[in-house]
């Protein structure tokens, strides 16, 4: 009786295990989704809608926007913004904020560049690990101070933001090259600027889609067997199909030759890197006790404490992972620029919060997913890239991003109010 009779044909029946009613029919699913939207739990809909509108707008203004070359470029541009968002989400979910992730990222990148060039010339992965370790420790330090001294994370991370600016300056002067360290290691340069071979790209996309399908089918079957609530088969199929379609588009865009002088083709390494982080962190958040406790603490810290959740330990881990992820973003950023400078893009500081919040992560804690930073980061990259293409200056771009952030926060605040009323 639990076997699906076909998409949309299953109806929540009587006598199903556990005495529970579960609405597995497609109609019920959409009805409940609509109810959620009506009560303000809009999820990713606004940001996806915004993204589509932006893409249409820019393509209309400049037909180069959707060219293969520009889209590949946009993906690498978005990569570090997205990963910065992943970093910030760890602390936002707790109901905290870390203003220093941008500079923390800069530190990791600069250390990596420094360690991989003369006089040390360490191999690329050692340099990467050193960068990641440094940013993790910084994240952990912020966490310890916030937790032990019970200070607002806003102020602590602001102090770190200022302090790290100086530290970054010092690091970039270490090699006597007056404020810049050039990356000479080709692997490190390739992290963002290099591409998978077209065939490797195909293999990667196919393997990912197959893996996701298998996992979806298996977990769906287990849920049905144990009488848990399930989403309609059609929705699962649609999700997998959507993933496959995105993969196909990605391959179409990236695997065609976009070089002008010499052939350039393949998916940029940055894409599997940020997708890998996305999958890993989403998994940790959704499937482990630690992930559950991060949400619980952000939702109601006192309730979590009374339920026996250790606030200190879980918060410390989240801050540390934020630092670690910031380091990953910094490595991508530095690789893209081909080196580290003390004058890192000031916007880097704000991109972390902006990509998470534009994507739909709550500033008040407990609400949001890693995938939101992916969408938010894409929005930011699309706006900068598109406005650059249609010839708007940097100042205008910043003003527009400011408005977009404001709009995103307003949408969230308004929908929460709606929710409280509904």
């Amino acid at each position, binding site marked *: 009786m639990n076997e699906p009779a076909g998409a949309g044909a299953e109806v929540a029946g009587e006598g199903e295990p556990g005495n529970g009613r579960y609405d597995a029919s497609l109609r019920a699913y959409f009805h409940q989704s609509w109810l959620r939207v009506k009560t303000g739990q809009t999820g990713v809909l606004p940001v996806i809608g915004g993204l589509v509108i932006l893409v249409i707008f820019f393509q209309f203004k400049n037909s180069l926007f959707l060219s293969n070359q520009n889209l590949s470029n946009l993906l690498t541009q978005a990569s570090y913004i997205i990963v910065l968002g992943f970093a910030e989400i760890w602390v936002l979910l707790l109901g905290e904020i870390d203003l220093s992730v941008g500079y923390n990222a800069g530190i990791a990148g600069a250390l990596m560049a420094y360690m991989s060039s003369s006089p040390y010339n360490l191999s690329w992965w050692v340099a990467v690990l050193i960068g990641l370790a440094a940013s993790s420790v910084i994240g952990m330090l912020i966490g310890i101070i916030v937790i032990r001294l019970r200070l607002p994370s806003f102020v602590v991370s602001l102090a770190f933001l200022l302090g790290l600016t100086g530290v970054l300056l010092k690091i970039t002067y270490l090699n006597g090259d007056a404020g810049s360290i050039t990356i000479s290691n080709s692997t490190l340069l390739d992290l963002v600027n290099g591409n998978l071979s077209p065939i490797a790209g195909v293999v990667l996309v196919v393997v990912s889609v197959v893996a996701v399908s298998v996992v979806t089918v298996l977990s769906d079957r287990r849920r049905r067997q144990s*009488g848990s609530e399930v989403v309609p088969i059609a929705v699962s199929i649609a999700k997998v199909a959507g993933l496959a379609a995105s993969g196909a588009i990605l391959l179409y865009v990236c695997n065609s030759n976009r070089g002008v002088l010499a052939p350039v083709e393949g998916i940029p390494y940055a894409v599997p890197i940020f997708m890998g982080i996305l999958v890993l962190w989403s998994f940790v958040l959704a499937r482990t006790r630690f992930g559950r406790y991060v*949400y619980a603490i952000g*939702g109601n810290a006192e309730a*979590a404490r009374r*339920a026996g959740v250790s606030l200190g330990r879980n918060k410390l881990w989240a801050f540390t992972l934020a630092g670690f992820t910031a380091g990953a973003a910094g490595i991508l950023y530095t690789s893209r620029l081909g080196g580290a400078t003390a004058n890192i893009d000031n916007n880097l500081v704000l991109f972390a919060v902006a990509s998470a919040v534009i994507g739909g992560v709550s500033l008040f804690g407990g609400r949001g997913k890693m995938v939101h930073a992916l969408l938010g980061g894409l929005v930011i990259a699309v706006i900068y890239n598109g406005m650059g293409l249609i010839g708007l200056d940097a100042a205008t771009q910043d003003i527009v991003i400011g408005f977009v952030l404001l709009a995103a926060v307003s949408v969230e605040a308004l929908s929460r109010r709606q929710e409280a009323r509904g």
Partner: protein
Amino acid sequence: MLLRLRGISKSFGAVQALRDVDLDVPAGQVTALVGDNGAGKSTLIKTVAGAWSPSSGEISWEDEHVTIRTPRDADALGIATVYQDLALCDNLDITQNMFLGHEPLRHRLLDENEMESRARKTLADLSVTTVRSVRQKVESLSGGQRQSVAVARAVMRDAKLVIMDEPTAALGVSQTAQVLALIRNLAGRGIAVLLISHNLNDVFEVADRVAVLYLGRLVHSGPLAETTRQGVVEAITTGVLGAAA
């Protein structure tokens, strides 16, 4: 006797919040604890819940002398407290809230299926039929439903005594009826309920026994049938139980 308090006193500095309180809480019955503001109701339940130790006095649990120093001690004995604020995470769903802090694992990962089926079973056992789905976020629940989730969480962890602090204070008529039915259901399952309430309508509808605190002293304790509403009101306001009708 499930829980027996003898000569419990508690003072905070110069303030004596409880004086020499003797109270029995039998299994399978609803004991209502009533009294005016500041009479010591909260102090008394917090003593049982392990929020602090009494200054003097003895607690026995299932006829054995025990000391309850921390909430964890109370938890280990099977005493669950549902505070007025319910301590639920709005952003998590019913199942996640019911297992918070005690999630079963499978291959070191959260065992969602196990949690979901146990949550569903517990709610069904308690005849909580108003929730649409155990995967509903708590923020979308009504006050009565939230109360039910908080109680179900206590019951699921094999509580023998459930202490409820003003469970109907913020509820409308039908929601209140829902919660009172739930309380009767608990008692029917052999669980002792210690109910704190301002609302004598609720007390007289649901309780088996009533205990009245007045300025830190227990001025009356006994079966509800032996008192009248008027008598209880007098005890609450004057400290002397009015004559039974």
